[in-house]
């Protein structure tokens, strides 16, 4: 028999605290689809995705119904297209991207990730073709996400790729000018990209992953915030002593455990019903623009006037770490990014702090040294020089490389707009005011090109 508290607290998490399974992501390896013939390749890709994804949406809905936990998004990740489509040039890559878009629409998923290249140590032919194809590919498709890994702790930073991505981000923005540069919201530059992340825009299926696999992304910033609020409201911990940050970290950890358990249960059942292996549960506090589903609001619960105030990085470090600890105890299959996201436009509280000037790009960069990803969904002026975007990427990649963590940059240079103006991407992508980028010129440094070598602690063997 369930206790009263078990029932009411689960109901509250669902009804008032936005607990959901943010995404069930079907990973599909495309290595067995390869061909030098473009038509044959895209036919193979469409057929394989169709074969495994046909039941994905209906099964997710059935399982969500059974447990009363909505599976908000159903998505697909595929092998890096730069690898499996290596024989093709930029035009061929655009055609592949369109075929993937059609496959995503046919399957009824909202995003498909994996239009990706791994270039941390250098470019192969397919990598260059894919990166060159990005503006047209992302402008002419709706549901395709792209990720480019330009750095790793083992290999260092490919500064030629960093320079190239600075230019390509501007071109993607220009190609989607009519949508406020929306293409850049579907393009992320990574250091240490995980192979199994189910969240977009960084989802792709790594080369060491199974043929087909189900990965799950669970969210729940609202659940964590409410749990902290309840604990602090009582003012005392369960031993009757005054609450301290040690107790707050414990509350976050226990809440993360609960949320991860939900994700693992739903994910394993979806995988079982589809006859596929279960991969990972990724517990990431991924906000949405809805009030009460915000990572930024957690900072206020812990006593900061707003995210961005002094102390922000420390709170984020505690939050990110406690989430990982709770998740690791809840499931042996924790993977992906697992931690706290800080996407500016997708979080009403973070967006408000950025708009009011309380949160700058510099502070966001500091925060990325302790959060689970990086500079995310940040609108910057459309006339930002490519070398400045590359400089921002290089700084972020350096944080990831040295700290052995994933970092990423997803900035949107909004064409024709400047600091203070607003851009809206709609839906989960939200809206944001354009914030200034650091002044100064990075072009001399970026133009040197080459590679920043791997750090000394990469020599571990």
């Amino acid at each position, binding site marked *: 028999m*369930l206790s009263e*508290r*078990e029932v*009411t607290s689960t109901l509250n998490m*669902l009804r008032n605290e936005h607990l959901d399974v943010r995404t069930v992501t079907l990973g599909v390896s495309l290595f067995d689809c390869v061909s030098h013939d473009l038509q044959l390749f895209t036919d193979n890709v469409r057929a394989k995705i169709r074969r495994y994804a046909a039941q994905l949406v209906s099964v997710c809905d059935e399982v969500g*119904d059974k447990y*009363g936990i909505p599976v908000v998004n159903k998505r697909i990740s595929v092998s890096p297209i730069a690898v499996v489509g290596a024989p093709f040039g930029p035009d061929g890559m655009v055609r592949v991207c369109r075929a993937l878009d059609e496959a995503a629409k046919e399957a009824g998923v909202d995003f498909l990730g994996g239009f990706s290249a791994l270039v941390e140590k250098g470019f192969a032919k397919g990598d260059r073709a894919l990166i060159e194809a990005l503006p047209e590919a992302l402008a002419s498709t709706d549901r395709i996400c792209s990720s480019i890994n330009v750095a790793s702790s083992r290999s260092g930073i490919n500064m030629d790729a960093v320079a190239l991505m600075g230019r390509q981000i501007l071109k993607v923005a220009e190609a989607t000018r009519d949508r406020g540069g929306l293409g850049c919201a579907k393009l992320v530059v990574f250091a240490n990209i995980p192979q199994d992340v189910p969240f977009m825009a960084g989802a792709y299926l790594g080369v060491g992953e199974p043929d087909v696999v189900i990965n799950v992304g669970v969210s729940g910033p609202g659940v964590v915030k409410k749990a902290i609020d309840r604990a602090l409201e009582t003012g005392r911990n369960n031993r009757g002593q005054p609450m301290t940050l040690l107790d707050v970290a414990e509350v976050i950890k226990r809440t993360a455990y*609960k949320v991860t358990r939900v994700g693992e249960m739903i994910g394993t059942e979806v995988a079982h019903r589809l006859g596929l292996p279960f991969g990972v549960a990724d517990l990431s506090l991924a906000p949405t623009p809805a009030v009460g589903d915000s990572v930024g609001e957690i900072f206020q619960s812990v006593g900061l006037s707003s995210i961005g105030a002094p102390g922000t990085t420390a709170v984020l470090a505690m939050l990110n770490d406690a989430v990982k600890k709770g998740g690791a105890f809840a499931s042996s299959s924790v993977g992906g990014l697992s931690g706290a996201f800080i996407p500016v436009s997708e979080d009403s509280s973070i967006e408000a702090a950025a708009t009011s000037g309380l949160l700058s790009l510099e502070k966001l960069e500091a925060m990325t040294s302790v959060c689970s990803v990086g500079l995310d969904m940040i609108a910057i002026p459309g006339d930002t020089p490519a070398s400045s975007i590359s400089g921002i990427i290089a700084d972020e990649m350096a944080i990831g490389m040295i700290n052995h963590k994933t970092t990423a940059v997803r900035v949107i240079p909004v064409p024709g707009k400047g600091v203070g103006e607003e851009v809206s991407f709609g839906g989960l992508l939200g809206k944001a005011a354009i914030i200034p980028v650091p002044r100064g010129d990075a072009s001399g440094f970026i133009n040197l090109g080459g590679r920043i070598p791997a750090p000394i602690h990469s020599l571990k063997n």
Partner: protein
Amino acid sequence: MKKLSISFLGRDCPGAVSTVSQILGQSGCNIVEVTQTILAGEFAAIFIVQAPDTLEQEELRRLLLTGLEAAGQDLSVLVRPAVEGQWGTGLVCEPFVVTADGPDHTGQIAAMSRIFAQHSINIESLKAILGEGGPNHALFVFEVMVPEDVDLGRLRRELMVEGKKHDLRVSVQHRDIFEAVHRVASF
């Protein structure tokens, strides 16, 4: 030996279980299963016992009533033969938790349970939690066993419609989710 089911109902106070179990022991009865609960100061218990074949039901009831009265315990007693087996044996069922909450009215439990009965769904536990979400707020928690041939979508729709008629917000969830979230279990 024969199996008897003995139920007790009355005002709760310390010593009730002690008195009952002593009398049962003295009568040669072996307690094989027992459960008890307290609701608003009322004590209820069910004992399943193995009783000697020579002990008549009425005689056992009289012994219990006399002993309880002597101990100052105000409890009603019902003794009847225990039925072998239980509902659902051989049926494949899944455990679900149905919650319904809203302003408290008469007829709400009757309305919800009628739907369960129509689908041959057994209620294994029912709790009413009053006043938690506001002064006149009621939350009903039904733990039910749903036979596998029941159309879950249809059941959910019917419960929602019926709930709406009675100002109730209804949720239907597999029981596993509650356990997964709150309990740490070994394999």
